[in-house]
């Protein structure tokens, strides 16, 4: 049975306006030996949490009462980690991570827990998990493996038509609208948040269509790359996105 616990060390976010992002505990804490020690070792991927936190800090600099913040939930997605709930909570508090809630679920019910917690974006490195969540209508994005070594202090969110995870048309436009609004809190340059469109296979007209579709959903992306079949590896290693959101080849709206 899944359970949700608030982190009493962290101020809770506005339930109506905050953008709820779920990150798996696997990305934050290394699975250590079961030696009974209290604190888990932190994984380099927690850099992502730092970037989400930094966006929140900058938003609150512009407006201390800002309700449109990232609301981060830490979720366990397998029964083994589900057993380590108290260690996860104490480790989170030990490192002072800005996580508002914990959700302790297993393989069988994590996708449902994402739904009940109104998660708007689920971040994971595991494709199967992402697919399962997407099937339950939760927008999922693959964390780039390179997030651990990225030197950027800017959260870089990439949209592309890679059909690894089927997008859910019901949620992506509204997520884009929220992201657009959040992005507009900052100027065009010196933003802690950057949105990137990558067109992998189509040509310039496909890219223009996606630019305009995202714009009409409320999100004006900052950067756009059209590869038209060029190998993606070299470009992506310069681009260094932190995670990738799939948009369908016909745009966000069906």
């Amino acid at each position, binding site marked *: 049975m899944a359970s949700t616990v608030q982190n009493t060390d962290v101020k809770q976010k506005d339930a109506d306006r905050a953008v709820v992002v779920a990150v798996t505990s696997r990305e934050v804490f290394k699975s250590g030996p079961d030696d009974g020690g209290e604190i888990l070792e932190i994984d380099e991927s927690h850099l992502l949490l730092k970037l989400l936190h930094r966006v929140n800090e900058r938003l609150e600099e512009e407006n201390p009462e800002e309700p449109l913040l990232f609301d981060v939930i830490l979720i366990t997605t397998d029964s083994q980690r589900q057993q380590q709930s108290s260690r996860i909570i104490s480790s989170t508090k030990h490192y002072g991570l800005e996580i508002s809630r914990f959700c302790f679920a297993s393989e069988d019910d994590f996708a449902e827990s994402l739904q009940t917690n109104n998660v708007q974006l689920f971040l994971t490195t595991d494709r199967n998990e992402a697919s399962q969540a997407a099937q339950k209508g939760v927008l999922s994005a693959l964390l780039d493996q390179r997030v651990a070594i990225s030197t950027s202090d800017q959260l870089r969110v990439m949209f592309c038509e890679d059909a690894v995870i089927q997008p859910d048309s019901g949620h992506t436009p509204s997520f884009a609208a929220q992201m657009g609004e959040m992005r507009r809190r900052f100027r*065009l340059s010196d933003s802690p948040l950057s949105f990137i469109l990558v067109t992998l296979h*189509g040509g310039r007209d*496909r890219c*223009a269509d996606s630019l305009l579709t995202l714009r009409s959903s409320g999100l004006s992306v900052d950067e*756009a*790359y059209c590869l*038209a079949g060029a*190998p993606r590896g070299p*470009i992506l290693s*310069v681009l260094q996105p932190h995670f990738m959101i799939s948009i369908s080849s016909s745009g966000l709206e069906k």
Partner: protein
Amino acid sequence: SIKMSEIKLSEAASTDDSAEETDWAAAKAFFDNLKTNKPRPVSLPKPRYAVTIAVSSRTLFNMVAERKIYEDEGLEKYVAYQQEHESEPLKPGAAFPFVKALMTVNARLRELYPDSEELFDIVLMTNNHAQVGVRLINSINHYDLTIERFCMTGGKSPIGYLKAYMTNLYLSKDAEKVTEAIEEGIAAATMFMPETEAETKLSDTQLRVAFDGDAVLFSDESEIIVKKHGLDSFFEHEKEFENKPLAQGPLKCFLEALGKLQRKFYEKNERMNCPIRTFLVTARSAASSGARVLKTLRSWGLEIDEALFLAGAPKGPLLQKIKPHIFFDDQMFHIEGAKELGTISAHVPYGIGQKYHKGKLIEQPEKKK
């Protein structure tokens, strides 16, 4: 520093072929399935086989008025202006005739070698904001240019992307970016619009490229001798070392890439009708210092179609007759002379020539942060 052609050869050996094939095959399928009346390319060349030319938005199109808005009113007003006018195509810029000429060569190559990927691939490389991109794409559509690949970096440096595309030549209006590219081993030049309208149109059947010699195709080693020890020493030195090839300059590899494409026409008996023609326009004189240059080219296995030795005479009038789509020189003095008489010029910020203007040592400004 490593030259791009060397990088292309070594990359070819180590690239993950299957992932690359998937990307390329999917793109080919995309274009094959396009239901459109406009003739679109059946396949885009893979970067490792293509001669990749990266052009900035300000060299491809005339964005002088828009640039002024950016400088006077800031980034937000500039992007808003571009968005408001995004259905209005931009006017052609300095690199536009060059790009059209590249397309002409591609059409001829496709006729002779329908399956080859040894073509020009034109990439738009701009640090413009992506929202400006809509106007850029609309403008590309308006002129029906074959540009399908682009990077709109939203303010970030293009250098990494130039390398990722294995760029053979980068053209920009921004001298700092061009200098950085050259330092990274990428042939690059800062483009200038001519001040006067050329009297007659440029060729639309043949790509014509003119190069200065020293510090462009060749290193600046001989120019250093002129600047430091004078012309007489220079002549003596060049005669003495006539048979020692000069070291490479930043645009040598681009000339090499053009030569490879020219040979494809020769192999099909099209030498008389070759749509690429190259020119060397040098202040050296044929009698005293010209031999070393020709011998160096020969030692590199490179050909140049016409070598013009000016013996110090101004380049402007001769370039008026040649009518190249682009003329590369390392000295601003020659660039200005060419511009005044209607030649599209591209400054190569390399070597000792950057420290001098009209023979005088210039104060170096503080490097901008």
